């Protein structure tokens, strides 16, 4: 673990409200980020590897991830099966590579859906204010009052097992969190002089909200998204583990750990070990990246 150089200061020029100064090139920005936040960069690399695995799962696989093979039931990790095989003789390495696809799709889709929906609610609530704001905040309180997993659990049970239903179930608990963050940032932006100027010019409210206020909430929005991605992946794993998540035949990391697999855990610990490591690494990566992005884009929230 390389120690991070003394705390990074707020990075002017990365996200600037209002005018656009000359921006450094993308590569320069990335390099500077990597130097200042080695942990965050490491997280970014982990996420890149995951995206790579998801994109090229078909090329990276050594076996068909859903083909059963009676000759290699519970096979030990070997040259043939890099990470061993499960109780149906399916290759674990190939399943993990394909599982990255499911985890990433579900994670990204539900995070996007939840934060966009929540973001719009937050924008409306914060910009309009007054009674609308009050009512919206109460509803968000109610949604946030239930533990994330319990809410997703009830949702996915209510909607039935299907990929898009899992995405919806996981996105709902994200909505109130997104709404709150975006609302807070809208509340401060609303009072800025350039918004007042826009209003004085007679620009319509809708246009001000979307063209002038919304773009400036992008910082918190990105931070929120990266932070929620990790928990979305975790919730997907938990749902699939309980049999309420992504249905067969998609190989999902959570279902690889499910009760039916756990029964063989003593004879074949690789069954449990590797998918769990995959989940942990993916979430670890997105948490590290999220932390570093938060420090860089939103110094006020540092360490929170």
């Amino acid at each position: 673990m390389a120690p991070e150089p003394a705390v990074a200061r707020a990075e002017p020029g990365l996200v600037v409200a209002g005018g656009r100064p000359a921006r450094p090139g993308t590569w320069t920005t990335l390099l500077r980020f990597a130097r200042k936040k080695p942990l965050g960069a490491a997280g970014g690399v982990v996420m890149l590897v995951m995206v790579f695995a998801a994109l090229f799962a078909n090329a990276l696989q050594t076996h068909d991830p859903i083909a059963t093979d009676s000759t290699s039931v519970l096979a030990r990790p070997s040259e043939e099966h890099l990470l061993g095989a499960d109780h149906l003789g399916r290759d674990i390495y190939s399943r993990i590579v394909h599982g990255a696809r499911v985890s990433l799709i579900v994670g990204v889709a539900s995070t996007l859906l939840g934060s966009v929906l929540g973001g719009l609610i937050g924008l409306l609530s914060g910009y309009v204010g007054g009674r609308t704001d009050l009512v919206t905040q109460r509803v968000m309180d109610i949604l946030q009052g239930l533990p994330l997993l319990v809410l997703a659990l009830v949702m996915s049970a209510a909607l039935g097992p299907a990929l898009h239903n899992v995405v919806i179930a996981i996105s709902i608990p994200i909505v109130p969190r997104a709404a709150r963050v975006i609302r807070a940032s809208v509340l401060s932006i609303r009072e800025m002089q350039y918004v007042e100027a826009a209003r004085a010019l007679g620009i319509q409210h809708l246009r001000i909200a979307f063209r002038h206020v919304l773009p400036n909430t992008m910082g918190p929005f990105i931070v929120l998204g990266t932070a929620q991605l990790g928990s979305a992946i975790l919730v997907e794993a938990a749902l699939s583990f309980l049999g309420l998540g992504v249905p067969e035949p998609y190989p999902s990391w959570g279902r690889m750990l499910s009760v039916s697999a756990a029964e063989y855990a003593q004879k074949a610990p690789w069954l449990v070990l590797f998918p769990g490591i995959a989940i942990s690494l993916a979430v670890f990566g997105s948490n590290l990246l999220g932390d570093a992005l938060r420090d860089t884009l939103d110094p006020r929230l540092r360490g929170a």
Partner: protein
Amino acid sequence: MLTLFGMSLVIFALLRLAPGNIVDILFDSAGYVSEADKALIEKDLGIDKPLWAQYVDWLRAVVTGDLGKSYRYDQPAWQLIKPMIPVTVELAFLSMVIAVLLGVPTGVISAVRQDTGLDYVLRVFSIAGLSMPSFWLGMVIILSLVGWLGWIPPMIYVSPLQNFKLHLVQFLLPALAVGYRSSALIMRITRSAMLEVLREDYVRTAWAKGQSGRAVVWRHAFKNAVLPVVTVIGIEFAFLIGGLVVTETVFNLPGVARFLVEAILWRDYPIVQNLVMFIAIIVVLSNLTVDMLYGVLDPRVRYGA
């Protein structure tokens, strides 16, 4: 109160989104469907009524303390849930103790030794806790016990009256898995709260007066950093229940959370509704407790009459 009422509406609405009801499931598994029988059973269970009537029925029942009857077991819900409550409460309590014992000291140390190697190790340790699914951690704990000690922890519930030591071990393992995760958040908040307080002038004064490090850190600084920490502990306590859902399943403990999963899979409406409502009430109560604690911990917070 209003929050609870809203929650009851949300819970009810969510459950009624579900395609199919318990009668369909029972009939599917029985393999025959007679429309007349089905209608009779539906009437018996009260799910033939319009939705609003079902909602009003349920609300009236909850308010009068009648938790209804489980469709699946044909028993009053309360009788089924009652023996499970101590299991979950004990597990939640143990997890919380572990989370606080692990989270608060590491957070304080990490803040005092900011940007040293120790700080980095502790922070990575805490982010790792946030990253591992607690059910997987539980499995790994069991596996490593089996692998290194050749000892299999009991997988059937041991009552504390039968064998207290075994019972405690049985509960400590899942509590460790859940508590580690919660400790991560507590550690992060403790660290940032301490960092803020440690920069204050009065802390520098305390150092300047030559007080011992321990006195400055714990008596002067920590006392003022404790408020956000208590807040996050309150939030964590509510969210712990989410973690218990899977952990109780892994460790095969007969608690409320595991029962909730079963009930959801069976679409046992009364049980699910009441359990989720129960969780909602606990969340609201723990938030309230935290608010009350503010007044005790910080004399500057006063509640108007």
